[in-house]
């Protein structure tokens, strides 16, 4: 990997390796080198354009959750020849992690609850010259707050108040506050990425019959809020409940990667967004007309037990941040007080 410290064998090794070094080996100061100057980090909860506070934020998280572990489940990546510089190759990585932690000290989540947390994170990072230079991240915030004993909507209402009320609170990511970064590519054109992107596009076009056609009957599903399940019905219910809440929102495929690697199933990573009105009944209660922006990241693994002996989605991991959606709804309706 030209442009990266020699010890890193490949992209997954670099991504898993630096994650471990920063969080668990406590080399938090190495973020000064590992995060490029001016790095923009977009998460559903916020768009952070000034990254100078990242070390302070990392310290705050570790003060609240000192035993936090980040278990790297997968890195689905692609080459980015257009992003290469004279000194470095460039890559794009979609990293799926399980995070475990005990809520043992006071912090941004309030008084410690002692809750043992287990939740997923999906992080899309553009990398070159040994550093991350553009980022999109979805954390399963609803799983965190549920495991602490709160309902996501109630917790979000309290969060708005903690942040100083509707006028002062941190604004969730939206088209209006998104900032274009240096990475403008859309991934690769590998077949498994295309198949999964097409599946999501058809789901969003209400062609729900695509689920029994392209998912394994015994598909293992991991969804927001720490929910998990098996089979076509659960997939149908999740995607139906999401789309039904925002039936007229514009669906965009923002980034698509497909891969086949030795030792692993064929797999795909897709980042997408929904932008529009909360105008239907579904996962988010009665329609409010609030304008909502949703960033989602999904990973899929394919297996051989599909229709007529074809390939089918055998595992799906879909994440959105439901607290960021509730925040947009509460702020728009004035129901935050």
């Amino acid at each position, binding site marked *: 990997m030209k442009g990266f410290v020699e010890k890193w064998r490949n992209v*997954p090794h670099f991504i*898993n390796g630096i994650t471990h070094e920063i969080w668990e080996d406590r080399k938090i100061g190495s973020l000064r080198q590992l995060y490029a100057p001016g790095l923009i980090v977009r998460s559903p909860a916020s768009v952070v354009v000034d990254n100078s506070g990242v070390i302070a934020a990392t310290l705050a998280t570790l003060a609240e959750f000192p035993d936090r*572990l980040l*278990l*790297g*489940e*997968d890195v689905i990546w692609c080459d980015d020849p257009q992003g290469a510089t004279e000194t470095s190759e460039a890559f794009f990585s979609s990293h799926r*992690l*399980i995070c*475990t932690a005990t809520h043992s000290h006071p912090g941004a989540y309030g008084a410690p609850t002692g809750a043992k947390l*287990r939740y997923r994170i999906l992080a899309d990072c553009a990398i070159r010259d040994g550093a991350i230079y553009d980022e999109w991240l979805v954390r399963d915030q609803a799983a965190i707050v549920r495991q602490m004993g709160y309902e996501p909507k109630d917790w979000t209402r309290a969060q708005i108040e903690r942040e100083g009320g509707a006028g002062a609170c941190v604004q969730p990511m939206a088209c209006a506050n998104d900032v274009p970064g240096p990475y403008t590519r859309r991934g690769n054109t590998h077949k498994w990425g295309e198949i999964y992107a097409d599946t999501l596009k058809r789901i969003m076009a209400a062609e729900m019959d695509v689920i029994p056609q392209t998912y394994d*009957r*015994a598909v*293992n599903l991991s969804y927001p809020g720490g929910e998990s*399940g*098996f*089979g076509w019905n659960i997939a149908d219910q999740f995607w139906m409940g999401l789309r039904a809440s925002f039936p007229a929102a514009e669906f965009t495929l923002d980034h698509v990667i497909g891969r086949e*690697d030795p*030792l*692993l*199933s*064929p797999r795909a990573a897709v980042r997408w967004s929904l932008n529009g009105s909360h105008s239907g009944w579904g996962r988010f209660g009665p329609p409010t007309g609030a304008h909502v922006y949703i960033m989602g990241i999904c990973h899929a693994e*394919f*297996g*051989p*037990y599909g229709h007529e*002996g074809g*390939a089918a989605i055998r595992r799906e991991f879909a994440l959105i941040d439901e607290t960021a959606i509730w925040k947009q709804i509460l702020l728009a309706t004035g129901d935050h007080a």
Partner: protein
Amino acid sequence: MKGFSNQFKNLPDYILKITKEIWEDRGLSTLHHYYAPDIPIRFPSGLARGNQGVIDGTLATLAEFPDRQLLGEDVIWSGDAETGFMSSHRLLTTGTHTGQGAFGAPTGKRFTIRAIADCAAINDQINDEWLIRDVGGIARQLGFDPSDYARLQITREGGPENAIRPFHPSHDVQGPYTGRGNDNEWGQRLADILTRIMEKDFSVIRAEYDRAVRTEHWGAEGGWSWDFPETQWMRLRSSFPTAKFEIHHQIGRNDSGTPNRGAVRWSLTGEHSGNGYFGSPTGAEVHVMGITHAEWGEWGLRREFTLIDEVAIWKQIHLHVG
């Protein structure tokens, strides 16, 4: 596939299709064709003989859980059409308890558990079988403690004298299948891991498992990373620290479109002489039938699935204690 109906493309296709045909398409009578008349089936709860018993058992289960679904997760297989196949089939099974049956009056509760069936198949027919259902998982999800449920079984079956005896090798029968699997490296790796665990070399988990491993175990319990499988295996072994560990069958496979994987059927036979999963030691002679499936990734063993039947173990303990 010589000897098999030409509607089946390969062994996984055969296994997945006949499972659906029998259970969900209600083709109970097709068992006359798909199951040999005198097939031995070894459940941890006891030895069964013959396809008529399978048909009656299937009917009773469907009467109790009419919406029961069987979702085939994987088929890890060995052998060929000439000498016979062995299929290790991992399933997810779900159902709603709406009828009278083995779990008593309907509770209206739903369950989702795994089962693994090792079936010998030749000439379009299953003629030898070992089947582990996560009965402890069903019991818990329907609101029973597995130990209490085993006691209830003994009472319902007419008390300790008359209760059906859980499976023990001393009353096993020799069926038509005598294979031991294949010699693929991934089956051997899984067999080595299990052997080291049973030799109490628990460092094997940190050495061989991916740090982000997902483990799915008996009791419908699962966990991430190393500590979950370590604790589970320690508690199991420490309940039966002197029991004899045996590997009966091992399969490894490298197939395109799936990770490399292994399937091993194993057992522990011996005394309940330690603390662990099953309360204070009782000295009961116990046979534990286990099947483990595993998938590997770039960072080691990435997914482990193991089933034992806790209720059948509790039953052996209660029958000993009286």
